[in-house]
């Protein structure tokens, strides 16, 4: 049997702190080994299913996975900025927040590794020019560049840099909203909703297992982000001058992001004919409900309302209808190919 689960007395670390609990759960649940998962489950069944799909079904998977690999890579790069932000004087410089942020950084890197290994070993025929790293002269995958997710990840980098490099509490609120509510809480969770539907027709077992571990890690990141936002909101409500405007910043950022997210939802569903039956309307509704839960139940936001947010999502659905992504994909395919050739 394992040793007793009784808590061990700590010194400078506050083990009753929520951030400590999140950190400890990252140690217990988030330290899975992506390579071992690949060896344990194996690629064979997934390759067999993948090779049985028609090109349109593969394209739908490729559109979903494109934004996951580029998104995980982007958040892994930005994790260092989160570590800097949560150790700023705007918070209480608690070691527990920094400990969790360090675990988050490792987990986002591992998610990037999982998708990198999976794409390379199963889906490579849909990603012939995938391997260029964005820091080595590469760009996001053309499919990511073509849809709202690409723009959202670029915005994320800007917001995180502003927050980490001397940003005030409203900058931090925008960055945390974009990252933890927008990217992780809606875009990624919407992606899990889509993969659940797509798995019914195309059960990619190893991919599903990877998604389960990743979504579990992301759940802790979202809880962390909401705790951070809650701290900022409480200081605003306590009347601390420097924190005024936090709630409005959260609301404005969430409304901006729902446009990018809804465009991405259209990109992975109706624009490709939705061969694996995700359903664009249901996907957007699920995302909007998740957003409403986070903003108006968990954070009890006074700015905006759930009804206004649903309307913003509905407007974004109208805007997305009929978007043509092919020309953008073709343009970036060309740029990517030129870079691969060393031009």
């Amino acid at each position, binding site marked *: *049997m*394992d040793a007793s*689960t009784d808590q061990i007395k700590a010194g400078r670390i506050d083990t009753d702190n*929520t951030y400590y*609990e*999140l950190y400890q*759960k990252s140690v*217990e*649940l988030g330290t*899975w*080994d992506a390579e*071992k*998962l690949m060896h*344990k489950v194996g690629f064979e069944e997934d390759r067999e299913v993948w090779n049985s799909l028609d090109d349109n079904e593969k394209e739908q998977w490729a559109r979903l996975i494109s934004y996951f690999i580029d998104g995980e890579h982007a958040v892994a790069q930005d994790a260092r900025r989160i570590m800097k932000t949560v150790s700023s004087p705007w918070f209480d410089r608690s070691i527990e927040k920094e400990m969790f942020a360090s675990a988050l950084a490792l987990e986002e890197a591992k998610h990037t590794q999982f998708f990198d290994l999976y794409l390379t070993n199963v889906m490579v025929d849909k990603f012939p020019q995938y391997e260029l790293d964005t820091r080595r002269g590469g760009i996001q995958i053309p499919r990511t560049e073509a849809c709202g997710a690409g723009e959202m990840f670029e915005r994320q980098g800007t917001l995180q840099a502003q927050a980490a490099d001397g940003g005030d509490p409203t900058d931090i609120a925008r960055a945390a909203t974009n990252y933890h509510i927008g990217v992780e809480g809606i875009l990624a*969770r919407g992606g*899990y*909703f889509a*993969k*659940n*539907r797509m*798995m*019914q027709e195309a*059960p*990619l*077992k190893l991919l*599903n*297992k990877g*998604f*389960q*571990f*990743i*979504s*579990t890690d992301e*759940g*802790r990141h*979202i*809880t962390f982000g909401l705790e951070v936002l809650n701290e900022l909101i409480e200081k605003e409500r306590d009347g601390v001058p420097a924190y005024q405007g936090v709630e409005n910043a959260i609301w404005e950022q969430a409304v901006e992001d729902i446009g990018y997210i809804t465009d991405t939802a259209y990109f992975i569903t109706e624009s490709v004919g939705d061969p694996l039956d995700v359903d664009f309307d249901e996907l957007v509704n699920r995302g909007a409900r*998740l957003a409403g*839960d986070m903003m108006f139940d*968990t954070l009890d936001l006074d700015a905006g309302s759930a009804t206004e947010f649903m309307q913003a999502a509905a407007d974004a659905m109208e805007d997305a209808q009929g978007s043509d992504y092919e020309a953008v994909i073709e343009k970036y395919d060309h740029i990517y190919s030129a870079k691969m050739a060393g031009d």
Partner: protein
Amino acid sequence: MTELKDIEGAEFTASDDEIDDAIEEAADDLGMPPEKVEEEVAYILDSGTGRANNEGVAGAAASDNEDTNNDPRLEALEMYKLRQEL
């Protein structure tokens, strides 16, 4: 942290007894206290929030989850058992 059987926000198909039995069996296999296994499975589902918001596990899973009868708690338990091998 919320007790596994108190988590809300998902459709649960297994009975409390089935959950208890599955936790006991897994704990025995893993050589861990059942309370710890139950705590970890609950955290997989709710990330400390009390609601089953892990879309990747609590939502409809891939079509390979016959063993879990589509109950998110059993799906999370299966995931935890695999995690202990990784």
